[in-house]
């Protein structure tokens, strides 16, 4: 009896390992489903972020990607080549530069490639908040009638391309 008691701590440890091991194997569902999916883009109109380029607005303008990015954002560097690949496939990508400076944007695009058809300047994050985005980078698929079809939070990775492509095909 006295001996058995000494195994109690070990038993408690096993219970703890079981509970947290279960959680590690079954991560909680943290996907964010945006309430704006299926609704039209909220109305916004952003001036061009760089001289000689077009600005970005909510006007229905064919199927497109709307991509929030910034020159100060490290994950944005990672997704830049993938956006470039989509652009080469003929996808129209409108960039929205969040809280950024023209000279920094120009340097960023010169360095990591420029996949954008137009670039709007969102100096005070107002458009970002309108679209319910909480950080950079985030990407929206918008169909030809201006309705949001997909909201992707975080950098676009190679594994996400299929989902983006099929959403874009449905957006035509």
């Amino acid at each position, binding site marked *: 009896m*006295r*001996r058995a008691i*000494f*195994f109690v*701590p*070990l038993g408690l*440890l*096993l219970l*703890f*390992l079981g*509970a*947290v*091991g*279960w*959680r*590690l194997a079954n*991560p909680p569902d943290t996907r964010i489903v945006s309430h704006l999916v299926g609704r039209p883009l909220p109305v916004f109109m952003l001036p061009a972020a760089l001289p000689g380029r077009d600005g970005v607005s909510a006007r229905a303008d064919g199927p497109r990607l709307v991509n929030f990015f910034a*020159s*100060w*954002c*490290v994950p944005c*560097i990672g997704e830049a080549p993938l956006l470039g690949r989509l652009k080469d496939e003929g996808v129209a990508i409108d960039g929205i530069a*969040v*809280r950024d400076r023209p000279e*920094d944007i120009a*340097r*960023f695009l010169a*360095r990591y490639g420029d996949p954008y058809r137009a670039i709007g300047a969102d100096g005070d*994050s107002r458009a970002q908040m309108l679209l319910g985005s909480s950080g950079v980078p985030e990407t929206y698929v918008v169909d030809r009638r201006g309705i949001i079809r997909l909201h992707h939070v975080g950098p676009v990775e190679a594994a996400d391309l299929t989902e983006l492509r099929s959403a874009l095909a449905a957006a035509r």
Partner: protein
Amino acid sequence: MIAEAGLAALWFAAMLAALQLALSLGAGGVEGRGLAAIRAVAIGQAVLTLAAFAALIALFVRSDMSVALVAENSHSEKPLLYRIAGAWGNHEGSMLLWVSVLALAGVAVALLERRLDARTLGATLGAQAALALGFFAFLLLASNPFARLDPAPLDGQGLNPLLQDPGLAFHPPTLYLGYVGLSVAFSLAVAALLSDEVGPALARAMRPWVLGAWIFLTLGITAGSYWAYYELGWGGWWFWDPVENASLMPWLAATALLHSVSVMANRGGLRAWTMMLALIAFSMSMVGTFLVRSGILTSVHAFAVDPQRGTFILALLALYVGGALALFAWRIGTVREGAPFDPVSREGALVANNLLLSVILGITFVGTLYPLAAEALTGDKLSVGPPYFNAAAGPIALILAALLLFAPQLRWRHDRRPLWPRLAPGALTAATALLATLLLAPQMALLPRLGLALGIGLVPASLLPLLSRSLRRTPLATFGMVIAHFGVAVALIGMASDSAFTEQKLVAARPGDTIEVGPWLVELRAIMPVAGPNWTALEADLRASRGGGVETLRPQSRSFTAPPTVTSESAIATLWNGQLYTVLGESAGDGRWQLRLWWKPFVTLIWLGGVLIALGGALALGGRAWLSRRRRLARAEADEAFA
């Protein structure tokens, strides 16, 4: 080059840890020989680990953006203090800090521990090396702080603005010294179980290490609590957040251990229990690390949400804690028990202290993990918050405080003297205070009311152990105990006063408006823009008056550019009898601004109490160290006289 040198230093340190383990498995642990070699290896390991840590700090100071960790967590425009502290404001850097403290603890044992026999010391250093090896592996294989980024970004992402505070410079290192310092008690217990040396001599060797770690843990938790209090702008000082609980659990275990190790050192009793607590305390540190690093529980501290890293630490935890507890279960049955004692005796009171602390530890543990267990078994998502913790742990803590009214005055073994004369001063003061609150503040809730009464009763009661002594001949350690228990009284009064008497106002005010909170009249004089090194802010100019006294407060709503975030910087006026706490919120749009105002009577006593508790620990540690040095010198002199 600095990054590569740092990485190389880490690899060499890991190899030395492996060598240290091999040496003590061989000659060191079994025969007690080879200690000199083990010592040298431990020194080399600590020097290399600290060099790697210094290399990381140098990279942050130079803003070397080609290192991924720097680019993700720093920014060249950040003030120097936060560039340095930013080195541990992230997962990889803080794990490097963890390993550095582990190496420091190892070298401290190797150089300073003089009471242990050679076999147990060799085994202790082996256990310490085994712990270090696992965490080196975690750092090198799953959390390399020196990974390069190619091509390098133009500038970094910046540090989370909530962390851009002097608190970051002190809170994590202090807390880690405590967390990881407990590893020494763990290694000593493992070594003693291996070498069959579980007895008073081991307890006397273990006591200063537990005390040292516990002092830092106390300071770290106190500092973290105050940091959260002023930085988050929520006006609270403890939120029962899973990670706060993760630091509270090792503290509770270490506090229990501190008391039981003293029974074992003085009377030889509670051996099995003390060994178990020594294993549990550091295990709780590892559980805490695991909870923070795996992102398994949602918390303000969970900054590395990565199941793979979580699995790695869980495997380490299962290996070390499982191995140690299995060793405990297998070997402890052979340990002899110490001298018997009566229920009413100092041992009896310390057993009660330990049981109550363990119950609070159990309550915290269950509450922290209950949501997880509930979801695993039933699929229901729920959260456990302050209502559970306060209702469950509060009454136990009050019983503990009531015990403190007389327990420190009890004698070892058996105490047949009447209790009442010793109990009377504290009990009568507490009863008077209770009566006064019933008359003056009939609205108080039960827990704060009892807490306030007991806290006030403890003020004289905690000083009583000094009463019957000649102060000049009282050991420093006894003064330490008295001051620590006095700190408990002070903190308890602060907690009760804050939860019972705080007054709060949330208003939308125009410049020129005056708001009344508690005894204060606060006038919003103006809102104006100000700029700092890497932020701009709107600042409220508040003039608070009470009777003759006038205070000016300037709370800010700060906008950081890298990363773009808005934080509220509270402004706090500290007076002898409390704090006026002000936060500037958003603009209401029509020229009015949200203002949050609190008057918190005697809230500062909470942290003052925490500091006094740590100070008491430091006095006890210093006193014992001085005493044992004097004894050693006296013995050396006596030996010389005989020679």
